[in-house]
């Protein structure tokens, strides 16, 4: 597969060099009423790095993703995207959202638009590209994921895996600084999970910066540079897959990974 990250052309060597923090989560607190979902969460995602956020259901993974994408407001702490404090209410939130590519669990393609219009929508409406330019770039992306033949179809004519790949292409369209993947395989037939995960690994190898919440332990172990384990709203572990997943010292962490027997 050719570069999905346009204009990147990251060399093999560059990929190994983990750069500046792209995303800095600093003491983030999120409460729903009396329920503290995120309790002073802090960690970084650096350039070209893939960070997997793991944790049992209800540990705050999804809430954290929503905070990073400004779909939820934090109750304390800061989130930095590059040099921008995105929790600062003075900033243009719409412009900031466009700098982050998001892929959701339920694909969330727009059912009333053809694949090509789904992919080009943000380019045309947020960045003001003309249709020809947007479609050229979109067709390039679709071709690389093998979906160019389906560009005129409506989403409900595609399989779940195909829809999710289109959703990823849509998120990549504007060359986001950060790719946010929120349990993107959880709603897929097990047979279709592979094609989506393959695409994510491809992106990683091309130098994308990825923050993903997932239940695919095997995939996280293989693809992530770092694992952040959330437990009861706090960062329980933050380290390489090897350190966190293979021989954790914490008994609770060990019990958690033990319950997922399939990951190696």
């Amino acid at each position, binding site marked *: 597969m050719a570069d999905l990250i346009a204009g990147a052309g990251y060399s093999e060597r560059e990929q190994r060099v983990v750069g500046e923090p792209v995303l800095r989560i600093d003491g983030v607190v999120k409460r729903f009423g009396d329920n503290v979902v995120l309790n002073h969460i802090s960690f970084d995602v650096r350039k070209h790095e893939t960070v997997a956020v793991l944790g049992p259901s209800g540990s705050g993974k999804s809430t954290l993703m929503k905070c990073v*994408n400004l*779909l939820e407001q934090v109750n304390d702490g800061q989130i930095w995207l590059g040099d921008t404090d995105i929790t600062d209410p003075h900033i243009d939130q*719409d*412009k900031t*959202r*466009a700098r*982050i590519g*998001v892929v*959701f669990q*339920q694909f*969330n*393609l*727009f*059912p*009333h638009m053809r694949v090509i219009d789904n992919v080009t*929508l*943000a380019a045309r*409406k*947020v960045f003001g590209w003309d249709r020809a330019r947007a479609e050229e770039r979109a067709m390039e992306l679709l071709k690389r994921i093998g979906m160019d033949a389906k560009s005129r179809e409506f989403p*409900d004519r595609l*399989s*779940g895996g195909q829809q999710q790949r289109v959703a990823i292409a*849509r998120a990549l369209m*504007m060359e986001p600084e950060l790719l946010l993947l929120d349990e993107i395989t959880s*709603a*897929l*037939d097990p047979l279709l999970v592979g094609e989506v995960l393959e695409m994510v690994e491809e992106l990683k190898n091309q130098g994308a910066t990825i923050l993903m919440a997932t239940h695919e332990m095997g995939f996280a172990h293989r693809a992530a540079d770092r694992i952040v384990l959330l437990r009861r709203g706090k960062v329980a572990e933050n380290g390489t897959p090897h350190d966190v997943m293979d021989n954790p010292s914490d008994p609770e962490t060990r019990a958690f990974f033990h319950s997922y027997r399939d990951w190696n």
Partner: protein
Amino acid sequence: MSDGKPLDTEVSSIEQEREAFRRHQSMRSVVVSLLSTVAFVMAVGVILNVSPGWPRVREMFFSPEYFAESFPKVLDGLWLNMRVLVYALVGTAVLGTLLAVVRISKSPVLFPLRVLARAYTTIMRGIPMLVVLYLIGFGIPGLGLFGRMDSAVLGTIAVILSYSAYIAEVLRAGFEDVHPSQRASARSLGLTSGQTVRLVIIPQALRKIAPALMNDFISMQKDVGLISTLGAVDAVRAAQIAVARSFNYTPYVVASLLFILMSIPFIILNDWYTARLRKREQTSGMV
């Protein structure tokens, strides 16, 4: 079946028997429905024939001479109804959409408008259409602000005001029915809240509520006949004039017939669209 192999035409005796039984069953239902139709028509015919007043009623309502005589005038009047309908349709669509968008908005700036829109839809849906017509038709000219206004224009305004309240509520329900994840997805692409409503929420909502909207449109088609109460010479008023002259009610039947004919294409369109929507919903949803 496209692999070119000849189909196995041998059918087991069990399947043959099932087929025979199904054929028998469907034959039976055709015969039953035929018989019941004939019985119904005969019953109606008998009742009418034994009614002592039927010849008189037939003469009063279904007289061929009066039918032919009043038809051109009533048809002329219907042309006014059609024009009023077109303006009312556009006006209702615009006002109804504005009301619905205000109703679902969350911006604090729009708070007073939101309260107004809510009060408007509540009150307007409660007032009988006829009262709205009188209020607008006789109230506005009474103010003496705009000089003399055509009663058809006033009637159109009244229809718009009344129907936009209904349409606004249907639209609002449709907007709120679009799953929140669609909004999240649009916002995360960087679309503004206005763009999200315009490009993502409204188009999806319209699909879902199209049958309900078309139903309201069909209902509006006949309600434009109410502008006759303000003196506009539409189909109903033309019929009224003809009745007053001849003391025969056939012109009313003419007007009804024309209104029915006008609505049939849209009723067919609505049925077709609803069926298509249902089919689409049943075939999609696979992951």
